[in-house]
């Protein structure tokens, strides 16, 4: 399972200099040939739809599937969308942000423990981090419904505390939604962090200790900076999907906790307001692209994949 995590540095040997005239020419095209099928797939089914989404977001909202849509470059759609749903947008950012921070707090020690302190058990622990995936996402989230239920042990424990009201609920509150988000995206934080920490040379920490650094200082000045790529990658892989999620809000919350994902989902499948749905999706996507761009600028692209 360590193969899964991407625990190697470097990207392989460089090709030599340009081949002499007599040499085989086909080798220069090999990478492009290898990329062709997969690349085409991505272009056709990822890039094109997104471009189309952008176009759809500018359609006249008065149209429909039966009557057809007219392209009116209605940038007003974006304004309308934000005006109507800015609470959900903000809420999504807040929940996702909160979930990401909690994931860092919980995930870093776990990644650190597996990478640096687990010895023989490392592979087993990694499997344990991924294993919950094998149970369907929905089934896992529904299990939280049981754990946080009004009649359950956890809620009961909180209610028994002196300063907590008796009708205290965990389910159908923002707390439950955030809890679900944290749970579902924790592995996405742990694995990139693990990959970064695994490359850390333990002797660097020894050197720091030799130079009078206390463990906390060594962590702050050596480990933390060196694990930055993993931390940033983990943050991206957690925040972005969390911001767009709607299942946790649907199953563990009420319409008061609905996120932008819920709005987009209903816009597409229930209200059939495609231009608005597309506008909202695109807003979400644009934010992501900005974040990825900033990240790529700082870290380069070889660390990204």
């Amino acid at each position, binding site marked *: 399972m360590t193969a899964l995590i991407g625990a190697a540095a470097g990207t392989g040997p460089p090709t*030599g*200099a340009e*081949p*002499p005239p*007599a*040499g*085989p020419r086909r080798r220069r095209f090999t990478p492009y040939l290898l990329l062709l099928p997969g690349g085409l797939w991505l272009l056709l089914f990822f890039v094109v739809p997104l471009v189309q989404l952008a176009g759809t977001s500018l359609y006249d909202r008065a149209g429909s599937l039966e009557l057809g849509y007219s392209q009116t470059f209605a940038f007003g759609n974006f304004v309308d969308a934000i005006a109507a749903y800015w609470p959900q947008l903000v809420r999504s950012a807040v929940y996702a942000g909160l979930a990401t921070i909690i994931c860092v707090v919980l995930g870093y020690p776990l990644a650190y423990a597996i990478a640096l302190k687990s010895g023989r058990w490392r592979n087993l622990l990694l499997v344990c981090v991924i294993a919950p995936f094998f149970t369907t996402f929905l089934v896992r989230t529904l299990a939280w419904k049981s754990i946080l239920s009004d009649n359950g042990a956890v809620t009961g424990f909180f209610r028994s505390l002196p300063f907590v009201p008796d009708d205290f609920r965990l389910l159908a509150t923002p707390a439950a939604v955030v809890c679900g988000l944290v749970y579902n995206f924790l592995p996405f934080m742990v694995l990139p962090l693990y990959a970064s920490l695994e490359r850390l040379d333990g002797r660097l920490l020894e050197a720091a200790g030799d130079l009078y650094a206390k463990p906390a200082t060594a962590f702050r000045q050596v480990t933390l900076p060196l694990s930055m790529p993993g931390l940033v990658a983990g943050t991206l892989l957690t925040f972005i999907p969390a911001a767009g999620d709607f299942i946790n809000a649907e199953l563990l919350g009420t319409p008061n906790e609905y996120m932008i994902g819920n709005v987009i989902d209903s816009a597409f499948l229930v209200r059939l307001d495609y231009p608005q749905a597309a506008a909202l999706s695109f807003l979400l996507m644009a934010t992501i692209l900005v974040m990825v761009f900033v990240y790529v600028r700082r870290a380069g692209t070889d660390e990204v994949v």
Partner: protein
Amino acid sequence: MADDLVLENVTKRFGGMTAVDDLSVTVPQGSFFALLGASGCGKTTTLRMVAGLEELTSGSIRLGDNDITGLRPYRRPVNTVFQSYALFPHLNIGDNIAFGLRQRGVKDVAKKVGEMLDLVQLSGFEKRKPAQLSGGQQQRIALARALVNEPQVLLLDEPLGALDLKLRRQMQIELKRIQTEVGITFLHVTHDQDEAMWMADTVAVMNNGRIEQLGPPTEIYEFPRSPFVSNFLGQSNLFAAEVAGRSGDDLELTAHGARFAAPAARAHAADGRVWLGVRPEKVRLALPGEDAPAHHNQVRGVLTDTCYAGVSTEYLLKTPWGQEMSVFSANAAPGEPLAPGTEVVAHWYPPHSFVLDRPTGSGDEVSQYSADPLGVAP
């Protein structure tokens, strides 16, 4: 000869950097040939070009009558022993050795593998995996894997670099024995000058992509052709001198006000500015009371440092013109080494000198040529 390996005007450029610069050399068939040089001098690149793992920027490589320049590695009758051994981790030892044989559809694989394992003294190891072997054993398997294919040239890329000293010595003897027994041309790349001199019939000293000197170890050591070679192999004392005249077979030289003699046969340059060189072990020290032989070249000085090393003692003395000269003295008889501060006369038999060309602009200072580990000196 029929199957000599001939490199003609071979050049290799990586982007803006020239790794191998117009190199031409003939490796005689059946010889043990060493390419010696510091890191970055181009020796490994040259080897890889012979193997077909790098493409030439220009030039050609011939094996006997066949031009192999454009051939892919798997079409050349040449095999390589890699520095990191590169044993296939997913195959056992027997399959590793048999790899090349199977690719060529050779029969009797098991027998040949067995013979090869006997040759490297690891009989019975067929079923083991590379990870189970020690460094020295892996090295021998890498050798067996290459040799079993009976190549016309065997290429060795610093194969002993990863071994500890004692093991390395053993392997050097082994390799020499095997080469003599098998009779294949060995092209051996190394940065270790001792290794090159012990094992090779011919040594080529490389610097900055070119061969500075080529010849048998004794010739290169005793009669170096450039300051770089004189200090890359062992150490030399080099004195800035001018040729004053000739008397019979000897050149008369003046350096720093004193007169020296050297046979013309030991000179690579016979007039104008020269370096007068002598190896430290050829120099004797005479104490003030003793007389140095009159016909010896003599340099007065004061001892500045003494390093007693058991077998020999290395002395450093300061000449009247401020240069440091080193003298190795074999401790043939027990006794105390001389103390720093002693006034001595360093003297040597003139035919032990060598004379090198000293172009204008290369200065009178010799320090720039001494033991340059990066081979960066011009």
